């Protein structure tokens, strides 16, 4: 798998995941068991880490208006880590949402907020590093990239 493919996959996961988390959080408030304030708090609590990463992914997508450079081939571990952590974050958030949706015994809106806070804290470090490596402006090494190296138009090649 190449750098460009990884970046595209992770950007799609994060952008799509962020959109779905936002939408489902609101739906939990409209149709689910959450009251209005709880739903807004849920969306706000589930957003920070994903939001920051999604912003970087969005900037990456916007910069690749014409083409995204294929880049060098990455290791399997790199591919696994960069895809696993964003996916795991989104999956964990959806598990929490589902637990609230089915009104799991002992897991109410208050417990949900605590769980979301814990998830955000746990994944924050990993997502920050992944975001910086894949979509950051500075950085180097195998995974590190600048906007110049990450996205190149056909003309510049």
């Amino acid at each position, binding site marked *: 798998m190449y750098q460009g493919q990884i970046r595209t996959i992770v950007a799609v996961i994060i952008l799509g995941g962020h959109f779905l988390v936002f939408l489902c959080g609101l739906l939990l408030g409209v149709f*689910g*068991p959450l009251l209005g304030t*709880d739903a807004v708090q849920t969306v706000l609590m589930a957003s920070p880490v994903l939001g920051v990463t999604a912003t970087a992914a969005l900037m990456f997508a916007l910069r690749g208006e014409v083409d995204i450079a294929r880049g060098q081939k990455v290791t399997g571990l790199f591919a696994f880590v960069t895809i696993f952590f964003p996916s795991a974050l989104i999956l964990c958030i959806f598990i929490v949402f*589902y637990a609230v*949706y089915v*009104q*799991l015994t002992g897991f*109410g*809106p208050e417990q949900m907020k605590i769980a979301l806070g814990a998830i955000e804290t746990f994944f924050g470090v990993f997502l920050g590093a992944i975001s910086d490596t894949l979509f950051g402006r500075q950085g180097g090494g195998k995974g590190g990239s600048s906007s110049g190296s990450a996205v190149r138009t056909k003309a510049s090649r």
Partner: protein
Amino acid sequence: MCQLRFRHAARIVACVIGLAILIDGRTASAETLYKFSGSALKFSPYPDALLTLTISDGAATGQLRPLLGDNTPTVAVNGTNPKDGILELTFSLPSGAKKYTFTKRIKGQQIGWYMETEGVSFYRYTDSPLSDAALTLSEHECGAAYKSLEAEFKRGVTIAGLESFLATDRDVSALPVAYDAGSDARDRPVRKTTDLGSRLKQGLKGKSEPFLFHAPAGVEPYLAKWLRKSGLFVKVDLDSGGCGGADRSYFVVNRGLLFDGNGFSQPKFEQYVATRLQEFASKDDRGTTWPFRLGQPRVTRINVPPYPSSYRIRMYTASEVTRRVPGWWDAFSVSLEPGELIDTKNTDYAVVVTVERLKASKKSPGNSNPPDDAYFTKELSEPDEAEVTVAISRYFSRRDGGWCVFDQEGYEREKHRSVCDGPPSR
């Protein structure tokens, strides 16, 4: 042989005629007891009293007596019955005689005599004697209040005097009572619990001001009589300013449902309530069935005559059942306290329904059953609690051919969705 038969038949006829004359004579001159209401008379510290009347040959004689436990001297009552439906009575009060003309009105099984302009009246039931509660407690503007008692000490009563009185009955002195101590941020009363003796001592510190305490339903008549007989109080009565109480709801059903041969049966009461609560929670007014959950019931027996029971349980039901509002689950604690109230007859028994800690949770398509307590985050107001109280009272009363009462004072009628049927005599 034929003569013997004739004699036997003649004896029977004579007996029947004699008995009829005796019964008729007794009816015509028998003393009848009425519940009297008229603070304008200033007969006693209480607005209500008891009136005995004998109406015979166009004349009426009787006595105005104090409520049970009160030692106000009786007053002679004389008057005439000039025509059917009119009574002219003179009350020979120490402050001077007062004369009133009463007009008869019959509502169901209740015969009442009224003088509207002075706010004086008296009534009795044709099918039942007055209950002990009716003979002991006053009826106030908002109907038959219960659980909330108002007391006022006489001047000069000391703590030592009160303590020596409390020592005469340790069980009653230790009765758990509650009182309101201010209000919380949502303007709801903060209720504290203590024993009766401690509450009375607190009340004594307020000198000659009336103070309130909430006793278990059913013991009010006994408490009022016990305290009045002490001679330490100006008055002990139901709370006179208790309009608008959200919990003022009760239903009345036939005694047979709660009594066995030996009187009130606690096992029968428990079984009755458990069965009916399940029926109530399972179906709304439109016949739609809903899931529900009931907590573990707690049944307690009050150690004060007439030793009433209290059935308390946590319920989780659909709001369509309790408040006629779609889309929510309701969680609340309900207490059912049986007792004889002012307007219950000797064939009836009342059950006071109190709903507390009402919270709601939005229904989720992902769960068809009432959720865990953690989801009940929305606290509801007193009118909502009143709504649930009335829904329960109404269900029980309609289910078993009884009636129920709820004081709507203070609540917007348009917001009030459940209505009690009220007693047949009203």
